């Protein structure tokens, strides 16, 4: 018998370890892993990033059987080969941080595929428990899984759970405690073997590298990964070997460069043996709920109509509920707070009053009023994701997105941009390929967000009267057209028309978990508020300082000087220095431009301002200002997340320059054209 592994080293000594243990939760995407994580940790969780990566790291603690349990939610991955940052994170954590235990979440509804990750985890030197989730969904699909039979085959505990029910979590914890009590001595994992025709070469590589590898990497595991073509492990091994040794290994690898097929096949053969007796299909051949729904949801025409209806509903909800709430926050909370602070500071120096009332409350407050809209967007999108619809939306949009060298997965982050560009940029995380992710981020600021729509909605009636609605609609279509054209061109020049592969799982539809969605919304909102309290606060202070220094009034401030500096460029677009300054202040928050115009024309009453503007500027100037406002450089908050998500100042600058060129270019063109036709 080939022994890849000595299992006597598997058993950590829990009795000498004290009471606290660390558990890593592993699983493929769409297995309900996050729901299980939320069930255990509730609000007692912390969301951050894995060191040096833009991948979300979630950890939490809870108590069970008088033990503190520290739970780490590993990123959802299909395997442990270095195809994506998530996979590298998951396996490095298991191998280097050595949790006391790994719980693998698998779905009873697609057991075969979900056991693929288990076939890799079970071969690692860490005890494993399998949580058999989605038993209820499987039943709906006509699949029954016998957990005891599966447990006997795998040689590790298999616990059926329904991640939405608390009692099944208790069940899992009881099994866990039982195994800790007997030090995992009942574990007798059945390890998959490589296909017979590759056993020899695996042994050969293993013996060549085993004396040089760092202790945390099992030699057989590293050898398997190298045969799978894992570039990270190849690099690691290369650094551990002498050049001659590496030559030998490299030539063997080259000779067997198709061995990843043998390894994957070997694992699926093993899975086939594991599930043969455990899975029953009493109602084989029935048409499942998912198949029925997908007939409509993924249809090339009906699917698009359905998507349009869903998005229409999202817009309607956002504006019917979100916009009044935003107004209320503004008029009932932020404005009175400013007034109250102004009263308290009436004896304080003028600069302090301005700093707190205009700089902090005015600036950060304006951004915070977008919270209701952001919450509604996140809640609806979270629910749609949980139901399983999001993947269908990406699927029906795939054709259209191809024009821009993107695929369906880029559609949803971009759509989020209508609410706010910040979540749009963050949402680009779901796209695996780096060029496609960068392109999606670069295009996201071209989506007119609610703040810019508010500016347009306020100014359009000033210049176009009754035609304002039509003009607004036209402007939105215009900026979307610019987005598509930019996408096509950027894809050609930056990424040489490279196309990314569209391979996506369509998960089974299931009832959404409200608790999970609520937690998601809570965490996202919290991180938005945190950003408002730090970065946006800083930015708003800088803009405020520029607008009052050195003299104390806007007309003679540094900001006005900057405005005058850019006045020649403003002239191309028909803008005078006041409109130019208004545009510059929109960098801090898009709706600022109206507030700035209010200050510059010293008329705080809104109706007064629209009349003044209509009297001061020609329609051509008005139109040009609307265009440049829609396309101008992203607001400070968006710039901050662009930097965070791309991890590069280069791309952040490219994005700013892109928007600058696009906005000034198109607005100048529009102005010239409008003059030509005599507007």
């Amino acid at each position: 018998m080939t022994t890849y592994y000595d299992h006597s080293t598997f058993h950590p000594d829990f009795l000498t370890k004290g009471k606290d243990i660390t558990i890593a939760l592993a699983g493929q995407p769409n297995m309900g892993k996050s729901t299980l994580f939320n069930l255990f940790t509730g609000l007692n969780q912390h969301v951050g990033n894995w060191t040096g990566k833009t991948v979300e790291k979630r950890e939490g603690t809870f108590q069970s059987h008088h033990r503190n349990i520290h739970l780490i939610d590993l990123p959802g991955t299909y395997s442990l080969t270095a195809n994506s940052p998530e996979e590298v994170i998951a396996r490095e954590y298991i191998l280097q941080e050595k949790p006391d235990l790994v719980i693998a979440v698998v779905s009873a509804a697609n057991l075969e595929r979900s056991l693929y990750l288990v076939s890799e985890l079970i071969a690692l030197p860490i005890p494993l428990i399998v949580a058999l989730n989605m038993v209820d969904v499987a039943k709906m699909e006509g699949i029954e899984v016998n957990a005891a039979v599966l447990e006997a085959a795998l040689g590790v505990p298999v616990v059926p759970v329904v991640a939405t029910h608390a009692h099944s979590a208790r069940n899992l914890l009881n099994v866990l405690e039982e195994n800790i009590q007997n030090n995992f001595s009942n574990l007798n994992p059945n390890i998959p073997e490589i296909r017979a025709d590759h056993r020899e070469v695996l042994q050969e590589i293993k013996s060549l590298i085993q004396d040089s590898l760092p202790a945390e990497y099992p030699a057989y595991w590293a050898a398997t990964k190298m045969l799978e073509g894992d570039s990270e492990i190849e690099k690691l091994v290369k650094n551990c070997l002498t050049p001659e040794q590496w030559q030998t290994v490299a030539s063997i690898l080259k000779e067997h460069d198709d061995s990843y097929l043998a390894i994957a096949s070997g694992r699926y053969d093993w899975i086939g043996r594991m599930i043969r007796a455990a899975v029953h299909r009493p109602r084989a051949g029935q048409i499942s709920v998912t198949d029925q729904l997908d007939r409509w949801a993924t249809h090339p025409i009906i699917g698009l109509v359905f998507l349009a209806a869903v998005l229409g509903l999202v817009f309607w909800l956002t504006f019917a509920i979100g916009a009044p709430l935003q107004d209320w926050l503004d008029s009932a909370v932020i404005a009175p707070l400013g007034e109250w602070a102004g009263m308290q500071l009436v004896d304080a120096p003028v600069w302090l009053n301005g700093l707190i009332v205009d700089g902090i409350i005015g600036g950060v407050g304006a951004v915070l009023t977008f919270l209701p809209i952001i919450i509604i967007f996140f809640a609806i999108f979270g629910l749609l994701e949980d139901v399983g619809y999001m993947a269908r939306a990406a699927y029906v949009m795939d054709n259209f997105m191809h024009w821009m060298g993107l695929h369906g997965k880029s559609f949803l982050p971009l759509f989020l941009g209508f609410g706010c560009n910040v979540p749009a940029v963050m949402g680009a995380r779901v796209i695996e390929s780096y060029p496609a992710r960068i392109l999606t981020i670069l295009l996201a600021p071209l989506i007119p967000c609610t703040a810019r729509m508010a500016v347009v909605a306020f100014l359009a009636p000033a210049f176009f009267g009754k035609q304002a609605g039509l003009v607004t609609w036209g402007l939105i279509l215009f900026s979307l057209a610019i987005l598509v054209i930019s996408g096509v061109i950027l894809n050609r020049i930056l990424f040489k028309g490279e196309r990314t592969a569209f391979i996506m799982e369509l998960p089974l539809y299931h009832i959404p978990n409200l608790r999970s969605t609520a937690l998601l919304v809570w965490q996202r909102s919290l991180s938005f508020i945190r950003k408002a309290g730090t970065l946006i606060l800083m930015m708003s202070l800088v803009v405020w300082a520029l607008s009052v220094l050195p003299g104390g009034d806007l007309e003679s401030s540094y900001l006005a000087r900057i405005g005058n500096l850019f006045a020649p460029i403003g002239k191309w677009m028909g803008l005078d220095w006041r409109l130019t300054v208004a545009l510059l202040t929109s960098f801090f928050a898009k709706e600022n431009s109206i507030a700035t115009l209010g200050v510059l024309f010293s008329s705080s009453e809104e109706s007064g301002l629209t009349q003044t503007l209509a009297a001061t500027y020609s329609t051509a100037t008005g139109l040009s200002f609307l265009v440049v406002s829609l396309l101008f450089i992203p607001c400070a908050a968006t710039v901050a997340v662009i930097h965070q998500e791309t991890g590069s100042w280069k791309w952040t600058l490219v994005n700013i320059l892109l928007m600058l060129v696009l906005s000034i270019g198109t607005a100048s063109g529009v102005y010239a054209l409008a003059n030509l036709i005599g507007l």
Partner: protein
Amino acid sequence: MSIPLKTMPLSELPAGEHACVMALDFGRGISARLTTLGFTPGAELTMIQNYGHGPLVVTIRDTRIALGRREAQSILIQRKPNDNVL
């Protein structure tokens, strides 16, 4: 590599038909992703949706996978006789 005569790209399999995966004609990166998802030689799949243009959906190992047309063109399959069709 010798490919049997009846082999064809997955993109040409009509909806409702069954087939066996024969080979993946990609670079190693995409091939590795697909094999992980279950597209190993010999694996059985069913075409769920294929309108002749745009992306398509197959079921493989109880999982629905959406594939771009380009990806489907590079997956070689062998059609299996279907009871309902000739």
